[in-house]
């Protein structure tokens, strides 16, 4: 490497645009969820209120007196982001009806009310709030960013942790394969609440994800999005591989990308020559024990079967 | 202060009767209070409700243990509820029954008055909901409440044809007991 490259610095010459997810946030290098926040704010724009539960994205973005958010933003507690969003939506409905001059925005319909929570805050501790929000039909878009464990508190297992992953509360051991359950199907849970628009997406395909955010925001009532966002620390891989691993999860069918409308699958991102999940497992430290013994091999087989079954149900293979 | 205790069964409207008593007394220009014995009793179980009237504001929140008046909505209660417990001996027991007072097994020095409120209710309302008839009978027997006050309260609560039917039931019971 030549010395002029070493000295190269365009910091004062680069052009920042209208960024509503600001640099200076304290997410780890290579953070997948931080990309999700970026895409969400890009798709939603400034006329947006974000409700976020406790978790990585909250902690990295709001140490007093700093905020990485350019939109209106509220964090309350771990398990109620959907309810806080419900209350905001109800307030706006009320302003809209009773006090149209309350805000500069023209009407409640114009304000995007989005709840963005991690997998633990959404699928586990916050599922009551989410269920209530969806069942009551609030005009809220709920986005679950999935990094497959409680990363904020040091990689504890959640209901989105895949089979075989070693976490601090599902460690691999003499008799343990690591986590012994498959991912909870949040898309179906949302669809079964009567949520009109449900979609999954991966941070490896920002255009697809942003289109889905825009589609969700264009509709009335509750919407649910599940966005796959790898965590280099919790999964144990090089920070540069975040996008690649997100894509590989899609290509192996571990994370299928699809849309549901009124409970029916309406589009699936088909996969040509779906790769074996083994290829994805090999990339991450949290799965390395699986390759050491027979019970690990059985777990890989079991996970592959679960993926194959879902792929068949969804018509995932091209 | 006048203190009233009502004995009934869950679903018979003891609380409604206590409410009507308090509202009618309030209509007369006195202070009034009504409340149930707070419980989780379901339909059919023995229940109690209370009312108080006074010239000054009523602050007492304790249950009525020494009533001046007792109203019994259902004679089947007499077998196992001591309805006259603590009753002021100058007081009065009003029982919903077609029997005469002396036929009832009530040991008390207080006056016992009976009225067939259920029958009156059946005639006027077509249903055995006897609270307005008991209200009228209580007023007739005690002189504490006037017919105008009762009519005003009942009309406000029920309104329309049902209100009129209830006023008629109240008035018939009032006259029957006053006579």
């Amino acid at each position, binding site marked *: 490497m030549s010395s002029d490259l070493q000295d190269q610095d365009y910091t004062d010459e680069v052009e920042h645009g209208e960024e509503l997810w600001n640099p200076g946030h304290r997410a780890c290098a290579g953070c997948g969820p931080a990309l999700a926040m970026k895409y969400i704010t890009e798709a939603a724009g*400034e*006329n947006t209120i974000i409700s976020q539960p406790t978790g990585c994205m*909250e*902690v990295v973005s*709001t*140490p*007093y*007196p700093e*905020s990485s*958010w*350019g*939109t*209106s*933003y*509220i*964090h*309350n*507690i771990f*398990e*109620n982001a959907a*309810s*806080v969003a*419900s*209350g*905001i*939506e*109800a*307030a706006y409905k*009320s*302003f809209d009806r*009773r006090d149209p001059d*309350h*805000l*500069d*925005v023209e009407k409640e319909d114009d*304000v995007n009310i989005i709840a963005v929570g991690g997998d633990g805050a959404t699928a586990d501790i916050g599922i*009551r*709030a989410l*269920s*209530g929000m969806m069942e009551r039909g609030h005009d809220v878009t709920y986005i679950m960013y999935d990094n497959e464990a409680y990363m904020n508190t040091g990689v504890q297992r959640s209901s989105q942790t895949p089979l075989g992953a070693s976490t601090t509360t599902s460690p691999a051991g003499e008799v343990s394969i690591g986590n012994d359950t498959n991912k909870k199907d949040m898309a179906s849970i949302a669809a079964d609440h009567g949520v009109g628009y449900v979609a999954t997406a991966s941070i490896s395909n920002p255009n697809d994800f942003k289109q889905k955010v825009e589609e969700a925001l264009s509709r009335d009532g509750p919407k649910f999005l599940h966005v796959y966002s790898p965590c280099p620390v919790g999964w144990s891989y090089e920070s540069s591989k975040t996008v690649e691993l997100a894509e590989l999860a899609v290509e192996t069918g571990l994370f299928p990308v699809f849309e549901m409308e009124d409970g029916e699958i309406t589009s699936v991102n088909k996969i040509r020559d779906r790769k074996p999940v083994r290829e994805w497992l090999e990339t991450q430290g949290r799965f390395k024990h699986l390759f050491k013994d027979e019970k690990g091999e059985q777990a890989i087989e079991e996970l592959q079967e679960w993926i194959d079954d879902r792929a068949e149900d969804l018509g995932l293979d091209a | 202060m006048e203190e009233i205790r009502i004995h009934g069964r869950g679903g018979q409207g003891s609380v409604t009767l206590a*409410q009507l008593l*308090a509202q009618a007394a*309030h*209509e007369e*220009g*006195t202070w*009034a*209070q*009504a*409340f*149930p014995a*707070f419980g989780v009793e379901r339909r059919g179980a023995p229940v109690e409700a209370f009312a108080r009237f006074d010239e*000054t*504001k*009523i*602050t*007492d*929140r*304790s249950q009525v*243990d020494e009533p001046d008046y007792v109203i019994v909505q259902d004679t089947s209660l007499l077998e196992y509820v001591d309805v006259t417990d603590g009753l002021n001996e100058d007081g009065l027991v009003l029982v919903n029954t077609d029997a005469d007072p002396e036929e009832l097994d009530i040991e008390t020095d207080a006056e016992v008055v009976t009225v067939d409120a259920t029958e009156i209710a059946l005639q006027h309302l077509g249903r055995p909901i006897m609270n307005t008839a008991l209200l009228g009978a209580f007023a007739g027997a005690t002189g504490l409440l006037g017919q105008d006050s009762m009519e005003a309260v009942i009309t406000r609560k029920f309104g329309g044809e049902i209100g009129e039917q209830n006023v008629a039931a109240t008035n018939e019971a009032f006259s029957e007991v006053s006579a």
Partner: protein
Amino acid sequence: MAKAEQEPNPSGEQEVMKGTSAVAKGVMAADPDVISAYPITPQTGVVEKLSELVADGELDSEFIKVDSEFNAASTCIGASAAGARAFSATSSQGLKLMSEPLFTAAGMRLPIVMAVANRSLSAPLSIWADHTDAFAERDGGMLQFHAEDVQEAIDHVLMGFRVAEQVNLPVLSNFDGFILTHVQEPADIPSEEEVNEFLPPRDPAFTLDPSDPKTMGAYARPEHWTEARYEIQAAMMESKEVWAETVEEFKEVFGRDYTEYNGMIDTYHGDADYRLVALGSMCGTIRGVIDQYREQGVDVGLVRPRVHRPFPTEEIRKALGDAEAVGVLTKEMSPGYESALAGEIKGTLYHAENQPPIKSFVIGMAGRDITAAEIGAMIEETMEASGPMTFDEQESWPQLREELLQTGGDQ
């Protein structure tokens, strides 16, 4: 002050109405933008009545029929942060379920007002009234009032909105379950016109308005947290002045006078030799017993904190400092110590000029009826209190049925 003497004849403006309905109608007059509540005995009547008023088009609030008290509080937080006037109501287990979000409502300085129909906490399950629920939330940063009758339960909610929205703290307006929720008694239901005169529209300093974006609910590191939380303490202290103005203004608009001791405490023969202290509805019964004892020449009176948070420290010193003896009657307990209210009153008097002997009595737990005779016995025991007491002697449980205890009647 002798309440009976100053009360107008009830047949004027007042209606005889169930306590919960009356409170709901008071809430309607405050015209909240958002109401979010979940049914729980004995509060349910409040949400039922509010639902009915919304269904009939008499009340134009957004009514969120939530899945739990937890989310009643949570939705109120969202609504309040968005700039709405938000109301909820609960009891007992429901209040416990709200506890986590309620502490954050205080920290985020959201003026949510809640009616709390006080009820005991499980286990064993009980639906009946006492103050253990309110006291369990004592340290969360919510203002707390205790109503003696239905009229106060209504008025405290309205005054609660006014003070909450000025000092940016949530309010728990307590009224005893069943005893006040289920009683039918005359009360003046404030009209919307009167309330408009008394209660200005909410004017929040910050909201989630996207045209002026803010970040709410940031986390604070150790170098900032103490100050952020101290601001609640400062706001609580400030709320005493705001409350004093509020009760004055209330008197002007509505004619009801809660201005004694700046609205912090209410007394009945407050200069008597012997003074009872109690919260809420049992004070009504106590007044009658005080009348009887005074007729017999016993100089006994009542000191009733209307406001429990902020605690009326100076007022309590004034109201109790020169008593011969004090009896604190509480419907709450703190296992392992004495009742919280007794401890607070003792703490308040510790640095005062005088420290009268104080007896405390745990009574009326889980709705056990409190009779005149029992109150009389506590007055007599208070009159005998003197000098140093052992910890065991400080507090008694006069209604305890010792024959039911496994240790069996050896006290």
